């Protein structure tokens, strides 16, 4: 799957690896989770009302459309959370009963 985003510069940063839905995704130090995911693919999560993909909207923490989850169920706002080495996230909400 092709990513939505394109890097235009700042490509000399150190690579890091995060895990998204169990799969490794390479990013660069300083990328947000949103950047890492939208360079690698075309969506962040499914809207819970129509099950159609969403990929964020405002990138400034206002629209709340870019949320993803850690494997332990913590919700993260992808646009304002840095991708850090070893971070493990999922793009579907972890059911409460399994937490």
């Amino acid at each position: 799957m092709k990513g939505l985003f394109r890097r235009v510069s700042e490509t000399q940063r150190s690579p890091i690896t995060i895990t998204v839905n169990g799969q490794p995704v390479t990013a660069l130090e300083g990328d947000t989770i949103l950047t890492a995911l939208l360079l690698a693919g075309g969506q962040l999560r499914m809207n819970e009302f129509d099950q159609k993909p969403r990929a964020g909207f405002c990138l400034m923490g206002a629209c709340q459309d870019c949320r993803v989850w850690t494997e332990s169920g913590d919700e993260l706002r992808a646009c304002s959370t840095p991708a850090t080495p070893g971070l493990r996230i999922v793009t579907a909400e972890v059911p409460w009963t399994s937490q």
Partner: protein
Amino acid sequence: MDKPVVIVVGAGPAGTRAAQTLTQAGLRPIVLDENRQQGGQIYRRQPENFVRPASKLYGASARSATALHTAFAELLPHIEYRPETLAWGVVDQQVLVEHNQRVEAIPYDALIIATGATDRIMPCPGWTLPGVFTLGGAQIALKAQACAVGAAPVFMGTGPLLYLVAWQYLKAGIKPRAVLDTSSLKTRIKGLRGLRHRPAILAQGVRYMAELMRAGVALHAGIQPVRIEERDDEDGLRVRGVTWRNSRGQLRHTVGDAVGMGYGLRSETQLADLLKCDFAFDPTSRQWLPVTDEDGATSQQGVYTAGDGAGIRGADGAEYAGALAALRCLADLGLTVSAQEVARLRKALEPMTAFRTGLETGFPWPWRNAASLPDETVICRCENVTAGDIRRAAGSLDAPELNRAKAFVRVGMGRCQGRMCGLAGAEVLAAARNIPIEQAGRIRSAAPIKPLPAKIRGIMT
């Protein structure tokens, strides 16, 4: 007596200058910043390990950006700076904050609200597709992450940000496929009366347009968005292009893989609302704004607003307004302030206000579009509430204003609390009931004004 505690919410141009003015009077304000680094949205910084110079990031505003960043660095020893801290409520002279999943209540003697603005959005069919971002979002991707939102973006909307962002993409090597502006050449000429009050800014805008045209980017005026087209293939669901009508009503299509959209800005006013500050309908921007005097004092004692959160006057205006609100706050606290400085700041704000009126006249919010949106158009993107749902609330359910419609069909009930849909939702309702927009009301704010983590810790006293 202990020195009074002043909390400044926001660390953009207004919050920074407010904090600076308070320190100059010997106070040590608490500055709450939702972002990781000071600068706000307009002077948002890139992560520390990025290397682009300010001239690349901020273009013509590089000097202002650097000055604001430097001023803040000098302030740091004299303020209590709390980055990554969300001010999510306010009650009994205390701001309720969350940082790193911990909540806390911080008492204050005076509060300066400098919470800025977000893009003003008029939905159109397809605007929830992956690849559609606000103009501000498209700019943040570039500025703070050195990424373009697509390889072939289309920019649609109106206002100065439309051309600035398109130009910034062009400079970054990503040629916009088109700039689609809902404002007509006729309204822009009408706006000149106000816009001429800031000739340098006006000239800059004209230069962006000229450079875009010279690079072969088509700039269309007086357009009407029809829909953002989708494709659904091995890459998943995403943007295929934009269908629109030109100024003569002819159907046109522009191919692209991303859309940046926005129609001017809307103020973030939730904290003033929680404090029960008086609000008034501003006919220029068709938004409800906190009532303030010319220095930013609200109807509530000890509460001030400054910057775009108080009404859109732009970054330079925000710097003046931040300083002015802080001076007013100091005077109200019984401290001596320079009458000369107050007069200077008030005078400096005059052209900003005139320019703002020029912008709203020249690049108006296309509110009439709300009436003609197809019923199936999503208005509230949090909960997928459609224009048809709002019309049903306004019609058979007889909701007289937006909060009743929210109770009936959940428009504005979602996680963004109506930040994205509130203005358009009110327009849809007003059109459906054939009432003036000021009678359609505004979505009431509720704490927490942004979602809090479920695993919250801390003690509220």
